[in-house]
């Protein structure tokens, strides 16, 4: 009768060695004393936390990991301040006229290691001042579930059109669909200071500040 054979454990590599070996002692083998030790640690923290909360002695959450203080916070009423360069969820910046600064160059989706950005480029419609020489994203979709928040897309963008300065992190939505961020949502998200614009303006063709020339045959 054939018996299922499990694959053998591979032999240890030649250079393997035991890092540390703790000889079992009667104290550890009986394990009850160890359990009480652990409970004691938990209770010590519990009473200290309760005391500090009642006396309103909470330490600064930023330094708490250094200070010997409370190690939990009451999220979400209380939030840890994020560092300046925290990468939040994406947003697309807008021009003054509300159009996306994105020119659908696909640099971000090229750089993205998770391949979670999908862009469909298109031409501005007839009559738009940017018609003809500029592209714009007809579709711009980021799958925030696949995103690894590396920020490469922000680095890659030549137009400062995509940013990760919303200060938002992904909240636990209840369906996958809600993590698929589309162009309108991305454009609507504001940076931490509430702005939809870029901090990095420039004059562009179509803006009043742009010193372009006009000739009779430029229109089309």
């Amino acid at each position, binding site marked *: 009768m054939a018996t299922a054979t499990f694959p053998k454990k591979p032999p240890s590599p030649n250079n393997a060695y035991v890092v540390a070996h703790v000889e079992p002692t009667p104290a550890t083998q009986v394990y009850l004393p160890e359990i009480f030790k652990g409970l004691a640690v938990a209770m010590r923290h519990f009473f200290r936390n309760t005391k500090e909360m009642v006396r309103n002695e909470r330490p600064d959450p930023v330094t708490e990991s250094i200070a010997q203080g409370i190690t939990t916070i009451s999220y979400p009423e209380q939030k840890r301040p994020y560092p300046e360069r925290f990468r939040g969820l994406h947003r697309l910046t807008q021009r003054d006229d509300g159009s996306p600064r994105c020119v659908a160059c*696909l640099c971000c989706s090229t750089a993205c290691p998770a391949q979670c950005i999908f862009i469909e480029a298109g031409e501005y419609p007839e009559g738009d001042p940017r018609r003809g*020489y500029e592209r714009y994203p007809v579709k711009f979709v980021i799958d925030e579930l696949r995103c690894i928040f590396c920020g490469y897309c922000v680095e890659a963008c*030549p137009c400062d059109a995509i940013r990760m300065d919303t200060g938002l992190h992904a909240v636990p939505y209840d369906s996958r669909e809600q993590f698929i961020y589309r162009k309108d949502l991305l454009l609507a998200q504001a940076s931490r200071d509430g702005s939809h614009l870029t901090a990095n303006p420039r004059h562009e063709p179509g803006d009043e500040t742009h010193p372009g020339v006009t000739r009779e045959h430029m229109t089309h």
Partner: protein
Amino acid sequence: MPTFTYDGKTIPFEPGETIIKAAYRQGIEIPHYCWHPGLSSPANCRMCLVEIAPPPGQRGMMLDVLEWDAAIGDYKPRQKPKLQPSCQIPAAEGMQVKGDTSDNVKEARKGVQEFLLLNHPVDCPICDQSGECKLQDYWVEHGQYQKRMRDEPIHKPKAVRFGPSIVYDAERCVMCTRCIRFMDEVAKDPVLDMRERGNLNEIFVAPGKELTGHYTFMTEHVCPVGALTTVDFRFKARVWFLRTAKSVCQGCATGCNSHLDYDPRYNKVYRYRPRDNEQVNAYWMCDEGMVSYKRAHEGRLIEPRVKGSVVAVKKALAEAKSYFEAVPGETVAVVLSAQHSLEDNWALRELAGAYLGTRAIYATGLAEGYHDAILIHEDKNPNTRGVLELASGVRPFSSLLDDIEAGRVTHVIALGGETPADASAELGERAKHALERLQALVVIAAHEGLLAHAAHVLLPAASWAEASGTYVNAKGIHQVTEKAIEPQGASEPAWKLVADVGQALGYDTSWTKLKQVRARWTSAPTVPDATAVSPSPQASQTP
């Protein structure tokens, strides 16, 4: 062959050839913008400057220049050799040319780059040339300086429509005049010219005219930068995502060599680009040919059908078998297609000759159309010569109709959906009635067409973009295409489907690999003794 040296390498040349062309043929690229191997050379971009040693016993021409010396904080007089444009200097025996090894040349190239980029908007993100642009490539190789000009660049017209298919951006143009010369010398329609001077230089279309005709796309392809874009391709894809297969245009019997650019992520073909082949198309393609890449997706048949309803491949093959049971060989005919590759046609001919025992071999293809003296051939099928090579006496489509009407043919296995009847209403009507009289019509086709619509059993074949194949052009040159995208839907290479049909009918059609097909037709070039006489499968030649 006489030779000269370029950077110490010996380069052979034909008498009269320029330095740049001789080097180009050896695979050495001397940087250039205005030179194109297929066009005349105006030597106006100065990117190809090289240093040529003076002939023995003569002094070279030297230029007095002032050079900034940072150490003394002043200009110092110096002498420099005069550089010469390699795109216009004919090579001479024993000539010693220095390019990359000469500091003067390097400085000149850098200077030319800086000059060309003075007013060039570096808007690569919105430019379609990005990734294929000579300005980028040469900047990395020869530029790499900090921009010194602090003024606002000159702005020139953007997005000027030259015609229905081409959009021009004067800011990006480097005034190499390749587009002008192409329209002038190759397309023989000199509608483009240059106007203004210096900073305001721009290309324009002759007043009252448009850039139209059969060769407008080529202007975009000769443009070394993104100044000209085609309405068809612009903003559709980024070139760095595209992969390329060496293909052959299917638009006419010229069989222009081409690159078929596709995006493997979406299994989608995006454009055709000409591929150099001095014997066939030189460096060019026509507009109709360049947009014909769309046929990889348009009008495709991707599902097996029995009498119009979609079924599984197995079911379709079983159906085909039931039609052909106990049918005398004389009433069976096969139809080859000049739209399909040699492999596909070989398989069907083999089935006909070796197994079905039929001698009635016909051929279809598209009707004739426009032609000119530059590239475009009146025969709109890529493989007419190939079909004739396989079966020299094939009969045209109209005689198939005759034979059906006379009741001599009742069962047909056909390749290719298109027929000459697709374009002509009269022939189409007749063909429809004739095909309705058939007791069995098995069609293996990649594209929609009259035959495909009339088929009792339809098997979807891979198109030329989805399978490698051999095509014989009007000059008799055998050309092999590479596979680009994966077969769409249930489609499979037609030679394979023919084998499947043969097996379903109970024959030992054993070719299962492309290699086997190719090996068998080259080793056994038997042509069945087809009885008819028409020299060409072009049915449109008959009324």
